[in-house]
C-alpha cells in the first residue's frame, strides 16, 4: 500500500521542529509500524538524509520505549498495544499518518520522536521500591498475601512506564502511572511498611516535575497498552489521604 507520513522532525532539544512529509510505496500489511519506519529510514539513508530518530528496544511490547503519537492516539489507534506491536494491517492504502512525539512539559523532545522520559525514573526513585536486602529469593510462604490482592497488585505492576497515559491525558497528568506504581506495593504486605512515605514522596515528585492534574477523563485508561485501570487512581487518592 501507499502511505503519506507526516512526521515531526526536530534536530535537538533546543531546535524548532516541523512536520516533514514522506511518501511511502509498497508498504506491506504484514509489517509492524516500527518496521515501516525502519523501511522509511533505509530510504532516507539511501538518499543521504538524516533518518527519523525514534525510541525502541525490545519490540516485544514490554520495554515501554517505543512510544509515539499516531493519528491522535498514543501507540496508534488500536487499543492495548504498544507501537512495536501495531501492525500495518490496521492502515489502508492512501492513508495519511500523523506521527508525533509525546507532548508534555516533563517529557521534553530530545530528537524527532524521542522524548526524555526520565521524569518517570525520578518519580520511581522518589519511592517506587521496597527496602529489602538483595540476595537469594526469600521463602514464598513466609509472608502470606491474599490471592485477590496479589492478583490486583500484579495487574498494576504490569505498567511498563511508556508514558502513553501522560501523552493521552489532556492535562498531561501522570496519575495513572504513579497510581499503578503505588498500587503494586500498597496491595501487598511487603509494600505496606513504607506505604505512607512512598505515596507522599512520589506525589510530591510528580507535582514538582510539572505534570498536570487528573480530571478523571479516562483517556489514560483507554490508551494504556497494558490496560491499567482507573481504580488505581482512586486507590492512590485513598493512600495519599491515609498518609496524613
Amino acid at each position: 500500500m501507499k502511505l503519506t507520513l507526516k512526521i515531526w522532525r526536530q534536530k535537538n532539544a533546543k531546535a524548532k521542529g516541523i512536520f516533514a512529509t514522506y511518501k511511502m510505496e509498497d508498504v506491506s500489511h504484514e509489517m509492524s509500524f516500527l518496521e515501516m519506519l525502519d523501511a522509511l529510514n533505509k530510504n532516507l539513508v539511501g538518499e543521504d538524509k538524516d533518518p527519523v530518530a525514534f525510541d525502541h528496544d525490545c519490540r516485544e511490547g514490554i520495554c515501554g520505549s517505543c512510544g509515539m503519537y499516531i493519528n491522535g492516539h498514543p501507540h496508534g489507534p488500536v487499543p492495548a498495544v504498544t507501537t512495536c506491536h501495531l501492525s500495518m494491517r490496521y492502515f489502508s492504502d492512501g492513508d495519511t499518518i500523523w506521527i508525533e512525539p509525546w507532548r508534555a512539559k516533563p517529557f521534553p523532545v530530545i530528537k524527532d520522536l524521542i522524548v526524555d522520559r526520565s521524569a518517570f525514573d525520578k518519580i520511581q526513585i522518589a519511592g517506587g521500591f521496597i527496602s529489602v536486602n538483595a540476595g537469594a529469593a526469600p521463602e514464598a510462604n513466609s509472608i502470606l498475601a491474599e490471592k485477590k490482592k496479589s492478583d490486583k497488585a500484579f495487574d498494576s505492576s504490569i505498567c511498563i512506564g511508556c508514558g502513553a497515559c501522560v501523552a493521552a491525558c489532556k492535562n498531561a497528568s501522570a496519575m495513572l502511572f504513579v497510581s499503578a506504581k503505588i498500587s503494586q506495593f500498597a496491595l501487598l504486605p511487603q509494600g505496606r511498611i513504607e506505604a505512607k512515605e512512598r505515596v507522599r514522596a512520589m506525589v510530591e515528585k510528580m507535582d514538582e516535575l510539572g505534570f498536570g492534574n487528573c480530571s478523571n477523563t479516562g483517556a489514560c485508561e483507554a490508551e494504556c497498552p497494558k490496560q491499567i485501570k482507573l481504580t488505581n487512581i482512586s486507590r492512590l487518592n485513598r493512600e495519599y489521604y491515609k498518609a496524613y
Partner: protein
Amino acid sequence: MNKILFSSLSKKFVMALAGLFLLMFLPVHLIINLMLLKSDPVPFNRAAHFMATFPVVKIVEIALIAAILIHISWGIFLQIQNWLARPVGYAGGNKSETSFFSRFMIWTGASVLTFLVLHFFNFYFIKLGLVPGDPENFYSVAHNLFKISAYNYIYLICFVLLGLHLFHAFSSAFQTLGLNHRIWTPVVKVFHRIWTPVVKVFALIYSILIPAGFAYISLTLWLFR
C-alpha cells in the same frame, strides 16, 4: 504543610468536597424556586425570608459562599496548571476516548459562573443591600425577570451547561475522594458489583432533573403566565 495543602491530590480533594457541598445545595434552591409557580407570592417570599434570616442557614450560607469561591478559584488554578503541562499540542488532534463532558469542565463551569454573577446582582446583592431592590419581595423580582426573553435564553442555556457540568462532576468527585472502595464506603460493600453504574445512573438522573426543574420554572413563567 504547604506541600500537603497545595499538592495536586489535595487541590482535587478540596475541589471535590466543595463541589459535593454545592451539589447538596441545588435541590434545596430548586424546591424553594418551585414556589414561584404559585400565584400567591407569600409562600416564596416567606421561604426567601427564612433563608435570609434563620441563624443556621446563615452559617450554611457562609460555608456555601466559601465553597463557591474555593471551587471557582481552585478550578481556574488547576486548569492553568494543566494547560502549562502541555505547552505544545498535537497536530493530529487528541482522539483518545474520554468521558465526553470531562473535556469541557472549565468552559461549562465558566458559563455557570457567568450566570452566577448575574444571579448575584439580581438577588443576592439586593439582600446584602448592595443593589437597590426589595429583599422582602423576591417573588416579584423573579417574576419580572422571567418576563424578559433575553434573561430566559441565558437562564436556559446556562442550566443546560450546568447539567453537562454536573454529569461529569458527580462521578468525578467520587473517584477523587476515593469513595469507590468497599472498605471506605459501606454502601459499596453491599453494592460493589454495581457501584460504578449506580453512581453513573445517579449522576445522570441528578444532572437532568435539577436543571430540568429550574428550566421548567423559567419556561412556565415566561411562556404561560
